[in-house]
Structures are given as structure tokens and as C-alpha cells.
């Protein structure tokens, strides 16, 4: 028996107010954030010099907030946007408590609004609010995101 696996949700699935508890979570290591910060040229030693981070009052090198955001976003993709189309925007992205190596982040989202696209039949625009939090239940990042979402009937287009 062959099982054709499909992943992702469609416009019709994003009823306003629907909540998603996203899969997996992810634990960060010091190497994750050093690699990310140096690869993307974040030229503030806070993000790659342990001694300097302590000098600024941190417990050690914090996980770069852009990596925290990208990871929380990544955790939401299968539920929210994998079956969809281009990313339209992010607003009100606020960072909470710092994330340190050894911390684990999780993500949840809620559908804020949706509407059908006027210019692109078979597609709609969905907005979600996502909250990322750590193993102690402290918010590490939150934001609103908009994406094009495909309608079921338009699959394959």
C-alpha cells in the first residue's frame, strides 16, 4: 500500500480564532548562535564574545534574537504556511526574556483574520499571531505574520 503524504493546511482551515500548538520545540546550543551570528555578520560582540556579554550584564552569550525569531517561525511552518505561498509581512515583533544556550523554545499561533485575494483567485491572505516561549513558560518572542494561503480547490495551481 502506498500512502501519499501531504503536509500543510489550506485557506479553508484557517478559521478566525483557530489555535495551533506547533510541533517539536528546539533546544539551542552555543554553537547554533555563534554560527548564526557570524554567518549573518551580526557585528556586535554581545553575540559572539562570552566575556563581553557578561560585561553588558548578560549571563553569557544570548541566542541571537533573529535566530530565536527564525526558529519560532520555522516551528510554525508546517501548520501555517508550508502548503501556501509567499510571505507577505511581519509586524509587532517583540522580544521577551533573553534566550540562552540550553534553553528550549516552543511556538503557538492563533488565526487573527483572513480574506480572499482579489488579485489572485484561489488564494487568500491569512494573518496569524504567534507566541514563542521557553521551558519555563516565559515569552521569548511574539509577532503577527501575513501570508498567502492556497485554497483547497486551487491545489496544483
Amino acid at each position: 500500500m502506498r500512502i501519499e503524504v501531504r503536509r500543510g493546511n489550506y485557506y479553508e482551515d484557517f478559521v478566525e480564532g483557530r489555535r495551533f500548538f506547533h510541533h517539536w520545540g528546539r533546544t539551542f546550543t552555543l554553537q547554533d548562535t555563534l554560527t548564526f551570528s557570524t554567518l549573518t555578520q551580526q557585528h556586535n560582540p554581545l553575540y559572539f564574545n562570552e566575556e563581553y556579554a557578561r560585561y553588558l550584564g548578560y549571563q553569557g552569550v544570548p541566542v541571537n534574537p533573529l535566530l530565536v525569531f527564525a526558529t519560532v517561525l520555522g516551528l510554525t511552518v508546517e501548520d501555517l504556511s508550508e502548503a501556501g505561498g509567499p510571505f507577505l509581512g511581519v509586524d509587532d515583533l517583540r522580544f521577551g526574556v533573553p534566550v540562552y544556550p540550553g534553553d528550549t523554545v516552543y511556538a503557538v499561533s492563533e488565526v487573527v483574520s483572513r480574506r480572499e485575494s482579489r488579485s489572485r483567485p484561489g488564494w487568500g491572505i491569512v494573518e496569524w499571531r504567534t507566541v514563542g516561549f521557553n521551558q519555563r513558560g516565559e515569552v521569548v518572542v511574539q509577532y503577527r505574520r501575513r501570508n498567502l494561503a492556497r485554497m483547497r480547490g486551487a491545489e496544483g495551481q
Partner: protein
Amino acid sequence: MAITGGGNYFEDFQPGQVYVHARGRTVSELDNYLITLMTLNTAQSHFNRDYMARMLEGVYPERLVMGAVTMSICIGLSSEDLSENAIADLEYTGISFPAPVFHGDTLYAETEVLEVREADRPDAGIVRCRVTGRKQDGSTVFVGERTFLVKRRSHWQERDGQFLSSRLPRELRGWAEG
């Protein structure tokens, strides 16, 4: 002399300044794959070329560089000028990606300072700016407003100047007086 640059403390920023950052960055397949996959992003448009050829009637010729990769590179290009002396990132808003980025595109960034204001601590202030990323053909690929907390020169410059000199090897201590 100092551990960080001396021209980007809170006192140096004023609304209306536009910084045209010195360096560009050609986006590699490594950038996109490493960050997309290490952040557990499952959207195939970033790592399946065959899928991209069929998606949206094939309007995209190639795998798309993931938005957070483009954003991080543009913020990185701006960071030595804007946030080398930052203490914390507070907020982003108005983030959009007006044109797609593909492997091999070269990104440049500029930043306009929008607002400077007091923080709830005396040794730092808050800067809000708009970072714009463009690629080699001039098209805008990233726009976003960034708000961060940054050291005040009045409280930090002297200590920042001593950071390295206080750690000099014994035989180089004389350099600290120079």
C-alpha cells in the same frame, strides 16, 4: 583601542541620518540551507528546486532564499554602523520582502534613523530605524523597522576603552599608557 567602535553610541544617532553601509554580501546556497534547516523550516520552496519549478505556475525560476535569512543578512550588513554598541534588540515591525532573493544575488543595505528616545535606564537610549535591503539590480528585497537599546557614550566609553587594555599580557602593559 576600544572593544567596540566609538562612533555609534546613543549620542551619535539623530533622526534623518541615512547610513549607506560599506559592505555587500552575495547570498550563498549555504546561507539559505543552513539557516532554513537549522530553524526546522519545512517550506520546500527554500530547498526543493523541482517543486519550485511547479509552484505558482513556475513564476519563480529557483529556490527562494528564506525571508528570515534575507532579513538577518540585511540587519547584519547594518550592524557595525547601527548596533555594534547595542545592549538589546527590542522590536521589529513593518517587515516585508518586496522582491524575491535567489542564491547568487548580492545584497546591500542602508538605514535611516527614525527616532531617538530615552530608555528606562540612565546609561542607554533607544533608537528606532528603518533598514532597507536591495539587490544588485536595485530592487528592494527587505524593509523593516528595528528598535534597539544602545549604550550612552557618557556612561560607557571610558569602560569600553579599558576593556582590552585591562587584559593585556604583562609584557604589553606599556601599550595601555600610549
